[in-house]
């Protein structure tokens, strides 16, 4: 069955052959309804096992028991059966959307089959490994057969940049701010769609967590599988090297007005007087991001909860030195193995207002949780959680 799914996809895409893959990241173990559970169990009944290293994306339950998931029976049982089926298929119990920060980092130039839109774009862009945007079910099918259709971003000629996304008109102080990358990512995704762009005008490496935020936002607002940043990402030492032709097909010159509009577009509740919660960690928080969170809270008591979503890889270091207890005592709700937009965790209050520093949460929270969103920096999110009302620091683009 797995081979038929891979072959049928190859036919649909016009791929001439299958190629071997080095690893997979599986985004199929999140419960959306019984159909996905029945599919995974059919694979298990057929005796299938993954042929390559396969990490798992988030599930619908917090198996670490950090947070309470409001998923009722029979859905809860079906979600658990689904997670169990993927374990039986031989997948690693990583349960994170940031596998690249949990020790799964394929080598530059290697072919892999990854699902989860943010993980795909990070894998291609930041690690320089080669994957298409694998949809749920094709990722596990490729992992079982150890092969993937040879097309798209597996082929070097399809990885070259066609558009320039020039941010050199923006102020250095904005580019150095935390909100720059999620906001630019949201704008980038909307502008380029599924084309491959090269970001120019970036002075230095902004850090891995910034690239993680950029890619996640871009893959939410667009169909982005790969971006390049000249002088920063591994396949783009400079613009000329990575462009497909002598001239780009288009140049997008990003203006402060475009940034202001993209930033405003991330919020849906601009006039809110109070907030009900803050959510961070899409993609899952790294240990370094937890350091920032702890520093900003500075031992204060929060008026509304901060839901901090992460993987069990980061949890281990939090537990080690009592930091998790300190954060929880302040009012932080740590969510492991899953997150607040994929499964019901936050109270169903109707007309709630959620603040976030994640472009991806800003994109999906209104549809998935019913909360209206306000987008702000992590510092503003923390201050707002302490006060229970939104505060914004002006950061001009």
């Amino acid at each position, binding site marked *: 069955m797995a081979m038929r799914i891979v072959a049928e996809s190859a036919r*649909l895409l016009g791929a001439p052959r299958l190629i071997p893959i080095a690893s997979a990241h599986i985004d199929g173990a999140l419960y959306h*309804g019984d*159909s996905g559970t029945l599919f995974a169990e059919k694979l298990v009944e057929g005796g299938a096992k993954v042929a390559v290293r396969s990490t798992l994306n988030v599930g619908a339950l917090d198996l670490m028991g950090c947070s309470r998931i409001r998923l009722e029976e029979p859905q809860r049982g079906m979600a658990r059966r689904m997670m169990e089926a993927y374990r039986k298929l031989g997948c690693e119990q990583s349960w994170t959307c940031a596998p690249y920060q949990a020790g799964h980092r394929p080598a530059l130039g290697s072919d892999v089959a990854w699902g989860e839109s943010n993980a795909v774009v990070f894998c291609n862009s930041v690690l320089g490994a080669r994957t298409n945007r694998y949809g749920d*079910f094709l990722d596990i099918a490729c992992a079982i057969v150890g092969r993937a259709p040879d097309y798209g971003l597996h082929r070097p000629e399809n990885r070259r940049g066609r558009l320039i996304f020039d941010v050199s008109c923006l102020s250095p102080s904005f580019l150095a701010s935390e909100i720059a990358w999620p906001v630019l990512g949201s704008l980038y995704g909307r502008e380029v*769609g599924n084309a491959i762009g090269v970001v120019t005008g970036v002075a230095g490496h902004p850090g891995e967590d910034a690239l993680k935020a950029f890619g996640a936002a871009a893959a939410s607002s667009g169909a982005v599988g790969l971006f390049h940043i000249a002088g920063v990402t591994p396949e783009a030492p400079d613009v000329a090297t990575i462009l497909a032709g002598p001239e780009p097909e288009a140049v997008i010159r990003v203006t402060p007005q475009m940034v202001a509009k993209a930033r405003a577009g991330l919020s849906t509740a601009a006039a809110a007087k109070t907030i009900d919660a803050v959510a961070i960690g899409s993609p899952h928080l790294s240990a370094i991001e937890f350091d920032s969170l702890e520093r900003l809270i500075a031992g204060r008591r929060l008026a509304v909860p901060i839901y901090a979503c992460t993987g069990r890889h980061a949890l281990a270091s939090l537990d080690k030195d009592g930091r998790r207890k300190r954060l929880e005592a302040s009012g932080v709700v740590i969510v492991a193995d899953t997150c607040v937009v994929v499964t019901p965790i936050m109270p169903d209050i109707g007309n709630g207002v959620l603040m976030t520093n994640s472009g991806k949460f800003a994109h999906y929270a209104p549809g998935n949780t019913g909360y209206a969103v306000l987008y702000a920096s992590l510092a503003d999110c923390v201050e707002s959680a302490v006060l229970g009302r939104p505060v914004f620091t002006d950061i001009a683009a």
Partner: protein
Amino acid sequence: MSAAAEILVPGRAGEGEALVLTAPISFWGGVNPKTGRIADVRHPQHGEVIAGKVLFLPGTIGSSSASAVLMELVHNGRAPAALVLHEPDAILLLGLIVAREMSWETPIAVRLDRGAFDAYRGGAVSVGADGAVAVAV
């Protein structure tokens, strides 16, 4: 108005009201898998229901779980009557490919240039098992 469209994934012929989306959509986070209602508050067709419609898609964006959402819609009887895509979408259509493997009856998916979508807007449309997209009479 009738056009012969390329069949992307074979399936049950369908007939229904045309729902022509005017912006790309992410099925995961954009369409409720239980009801088929468009849940993305920023989408121009927010609030419309895709179940039973002939759904015209100018493009797809976002999550790699679009396939899981479409398969769930098939499984609980809330799938579109037929899908008409501007270009083959490897993520979304997997939902149909895998549903077929599970022996669930799936709607047909065909390819048609998005420039032709407008002619079908607002009418009842049928998509034949041979891929013919026609205004139903």
